[in-house]
């Protein structure tokens, strides 16, 4: 069953590339493919949420993989739909040719394939291979525009992430080494087999292994101070790709770190060592992101730094730990990806209309593109943690956890930084939405089709802010039990 979720995007990628110049057909295949991917993905997710983990040899899905799969197929299919009007506009303006568009859709499916591979692989070595593969595939998407700036972003992305990821491989080797005396030469590096003997693993190897894994996958997850590639890559790629990078890829890397965190929690070391490190990196990311959000001049970079901020919040959630910390962290993964995708889609509309990424040159959105302006405003309020949207809920959960655990100082600095980010972020967006539009800017949306996925996302984050569906809440509680947070 899990294989189907892997084969589908891979086959769709091949079809898109083979169809080549027949753009209409490629678009039809992409949208239909996105739909079928969503249906199949959701089926798997609900099955795992409902009946518990699926173990199919090298493939393994528990509720945690299920949550990640939910994020991948939701944002993946919406990004696919949003790509249609976005790429049509690029085609019309002569930025790209039809052949390149086919490659774009092909690589988008391939990118989704590699991310699914990350979350359904039981073998930790396989997880590494898949994470490295996400970098290699998405490099083409980041460098899609082939301009000087996007090449620079791609080069940094390739080099920094590859170097980070090789440290993660070193860490994986040490974790493997910790299991050899117990499992013998036949140890297969499967996460489930490591979990079965977690309390006997060698603590010294686990410690150094986790540090390397955290730095390695942390680079990919955009945790400061290894985040330097992120603002460049996220601002230079086409907007639907930015949405996938920010909303999904960062979470996949975080997922890899957290699998090791679970392992350490169940070992002799206990959770203290790894959660302390997560808290440290989380606070650092939040602080650095806040500083850069204040001084930002480019709205796509603004969104990119906001992603670093939110990865920091997720990390802090797991760092605080306990029931609310883990609940908040998990929920925040989903909430952030939905909200950030909405914002990047909105930014895509603005970029295509105004032709600039400078905040100072974008004014009067509410008059030129009223729907985009409203959705962007809603997204901005949501991402900065205003009620009644879903991020507010998860941010409060994380704060509660901090106070519950007696981590008063980190909890206070966490809430202070959130306030700073709120003021700075809203300041930038308000300037863009209101004011006098530039001379000669016509009124009218870029496309109606591009608004559909945005409205869908806006509805989801509003509903999720009001109540959390039972099936999701139950699944989250199962994951919390996995993390040992149900005391």
């Amino acid at each position, binding site marked *: 069953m899990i294989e189907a979720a892997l084969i589908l995007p891979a086959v769709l990628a091949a079809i898109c590339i083979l169809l080549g110049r027949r753009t209409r057909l490629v678009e039809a295949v992409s949208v239909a493919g996105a739909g079928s991917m969503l249906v199949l993905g959701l089926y798997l997710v609900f099955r795992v949420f409902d009946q518990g983990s699926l173990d199919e040899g090298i493939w393994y899905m528990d509720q945690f993989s299920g949550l990640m799969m939910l994020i991948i197929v939701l944002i993946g299919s919406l990004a696919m739909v949003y790509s249609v009007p976005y790429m049509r506009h690029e085609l019309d303006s002569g930025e790209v040719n039809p052949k390149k568009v086919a490659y774009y859709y092909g690589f988008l499916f391939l990118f989704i394939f590699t991310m699914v591979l990350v979350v359904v692989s039981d073998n930790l070595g*396989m997880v590494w291979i898949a994470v490295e593969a996400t970098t290699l595939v998405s490099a083409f998407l980041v*460098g899609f525009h082939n301009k000087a700036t996007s090449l620079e972003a791609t080069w940094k992305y390739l080099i920094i992430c590859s170097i980070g990821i090789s440290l993660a491989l070193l860490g994986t080797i040490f974790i493997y080494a910790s299991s050899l005396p117990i499992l013998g030469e036949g140890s297969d590096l499967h996460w489930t087999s490591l979990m079965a003997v977690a309390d006997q693993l060698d603590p010294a190897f686990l410690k150094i292994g986790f540090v390397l894994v955290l730095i390695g996958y942390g680079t990919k997850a955009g945790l400061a101070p290894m985040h330097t590639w992120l603002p460049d890559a996220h601002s230079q790629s086409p907007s639907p790709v930015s949405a996938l990078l920010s909303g999904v890829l960062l979470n996949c890397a975080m997922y890899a770190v957290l699998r090791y965190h679970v392992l350490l929690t169940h070992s002799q070391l206990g959770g203290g060592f790894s959660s302390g490190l997560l808290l440290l990196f989380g606070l650092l990311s939040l602080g650095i992101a806040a500083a850069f959000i204040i001084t930002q001049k480019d709205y796509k970079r603004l969104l990119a730094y906001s992603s670093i901020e939110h990865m920091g919040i997720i990390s802090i959630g797991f760092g605080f730990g306990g029931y609310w910390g883990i609940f908040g962290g998990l929920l925040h993964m989903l909430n952030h990806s939905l909200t950030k995708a909405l914002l990047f889609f909105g930014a895509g509309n603005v970029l295509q209309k105004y032709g600039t990424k400078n905040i100072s040159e974008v004014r009067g959105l509410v008059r030129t593109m009223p729907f985009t302006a409203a959705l962007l405003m809603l997204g901005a309020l949501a991402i900065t943690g205003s009620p009644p949207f879903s991020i507010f809920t998860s941010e409060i959960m994380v704060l509660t956890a901090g106070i519950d655990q007696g981590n008063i100082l980190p909890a206070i600095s966490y809430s202070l930084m959130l306030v700073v980010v709120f003021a700075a972020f809203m300041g930038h967006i308000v300037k863009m939405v209101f004011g006098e539009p530039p001379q000669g800017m016509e009124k009218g949306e870029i496309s109606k089709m591009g608004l559909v996925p945005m409205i869908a996302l806006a509805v989801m984050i509003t509903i999720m802010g009001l109540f959390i569906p039972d099936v999701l809440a139950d699944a989250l509680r199962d994951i919390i039990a996995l993390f040992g947070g149900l005391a």
Partner: protein
Amino acid sequence: MVSTLSLDAINTLAAMILLADFMLVASSRMRSLTRIFALQSLAMGGLAAVVAFETGAEHIYVIAVLSVALKAVVIPRFIDYITEKIQVNREVEPLIKIPGSLLICAAITILAYFVTEPIMELGTAITSNCLAISFATVLIGMFLMVSRKKAITQVIGLLVVENGVFLAAISTTYSMPMVVELGVFFDIFVGVVIMGIFAFRINRTFETVDSTVLRRLKD
């Protein structure tokens, strides 16, 4: 028991790998850079073969052969091909002068021995002594990446880091499970090809492969 001959062979090959690190830092020509890298990979493959012989694990032979084929033959040739195609000049253009670089690398090596000492005591593998050299190789690879101007030298630095990681795998766990090793080789190969393509594009756009021109994106 492990024969002294094998132990000698392992130590000699490990020493050669470290020597190659220093030669990489000391070389000023692009050509010699790829050649030394090929030699280092050859030594790495030899070391894996000795380990395979001693432990009797057949899959390590496969890994040794693959590592030699890929890292000592295919990848160096590909890098030479790219270098020729984009006609970069043959100088390495270090940002830190070579004598200074060598001093830094000596310090890195000593540091690597200090850092790995507690881990080496834990190791039960016959090759556990090599762990310090593998750390040194990882760090020197990173140093090469930050201290040399050309985009291509950064790719070679990355490959040296990968060699270090490979050595770490051999010296602590006698390599990883077969399926993982194969996947890692595949990723490395695809990665080098993609980086080659982008180095090519950078050259076409900026008319240089000097990575210091990549400074436009900042806050």
